[in-house]
């Protein structure tokens, strides 16, 4: 087996294990340039992640991020999409799990109990998109200052901000 086909075989193995465990109807599958993506509703997310970690050997959460698809051409699914990139170090397989959330008070269950490394990544997603992760031990802003109120990577937030960058006292030479 060549190195190029090894991840594909590992993906097939992961899919077979998931099919045996879940059956149909829990997630839908799409592929793009060798990436295997599982779309899962919010209610089954933790279940799927737990199965991937414990049954399929995807022990490593490589990345956790989100995207805002507001105004995206041809978009029919939810506005926000949170993705989890999981890797299996033994077989070299990787899976991307995607979960959609919608605008008024978007929230998802936290992956922190499964992977403690999700701590700061979930905080970053919260900071940039305002998606709350239920069960996260310390969900507060990580990049923007604490007094910042907006979520800057949302598509309806203007690039130049709403004047936060100019909201400081002006020091003159006579006063300082």
């Amino acid at each position, binding site marked *: 087996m060549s190195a190029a086909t090894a991840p594909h075989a590992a993906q097939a193995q992961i899919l077979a294990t998931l099919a045996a465990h879940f059956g149909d109807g829990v997630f839908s599958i799409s592929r793009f340039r060798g990436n295997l993506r599982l779309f899962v509703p919010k209610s089954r997310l933790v279940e799927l992640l737990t199965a991937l970690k414990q049954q399929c050997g995807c022990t490593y959460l490589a990345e956790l991020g989100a995207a805002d698809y507001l105004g995206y051409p041809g978009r029919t699914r939810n506005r926000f999409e949170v993705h989890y990139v999981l890797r299996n170090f033994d077989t070299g397989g990787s899976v991307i799990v995607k979960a959609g959330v919608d605008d008024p008070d978007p929230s998802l269950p936290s992956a922190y109990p499964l992977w403690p490394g999700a701590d700061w990544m979930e905080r970053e997603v919260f900071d940039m998109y305002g998606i709350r992760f239920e069960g996260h031990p310390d969900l507060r802003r990580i990049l*923007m*200052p604490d007094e910042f109120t907006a979520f*800057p990577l949302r598509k309806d*937030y*203007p*690039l*130049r*901000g*709403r*004047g*936060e*960058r*100019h909201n*400081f*006292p*002006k*020091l*003159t*030479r*006579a006063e*300082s």
Partner: protein
Amino acid sequence: MAMNPPTSPAFGQRAGSDLIITPSGQPEVPENVFLTTMDSVVSWCRKYSLWPMPFATACCGIELMAVGASRFDIARFGAEVMRFSPRQCDLMIVAGRVAMKMMPVLQRIWLQMPEPKWCISMGACASTGGIFDTYAVVQGVDRFIPVDVYIPGCPPRPEQILRAIMDIQEKVQKGGTTFGNEGLPELRARERYMIAQRDTAPGAGIADERGDEARFGYRIPGGPGRLGLEETR
């Protein structure tokens, strides 16, 4: 004996002293004595021993390190003592973009520096925000702290930084006093402008660049220019 030391009272005086012609009615100034003002002497001492505070946040900081190294050698201008405590510095060099989370830190460090103090805004980002016209980057540190010298460039050449040091030295000589830094008249005018602008409610004052309309006889489309949200931001 012929070798006896001479005992005349004239011995020991300098031979040429008799040639000094002192104008009558004027106080006599001895040789090697200069008259000047205290402010001037203090400023002269001060300008050759600037202690920079390198507020380096980005790639401009790397150029600043190059200026400190042997090839460009900021020590030739007496400004080589970079201190990382603001209490020991009198020249702040803001090198690099200042994020909006960093601005309170910058202001605090500026307030911690003892008087007299000067500030160089180094590079496009520190002076104007540069290419980073986003919500997170302050569009010029001179909006919030007084700046004496701006350096253009992205990043500036080390020679430009040396030029800025020399400009600061000139400013120290001209504007400094014994007990502080009163600044040059144009800087004080700018401060008055800033204070007036700060006290003006949005929409009430005439924007600065719109004031040129009457002077140069052109008219910017869009009606009379007033200080809008964009200018007061």
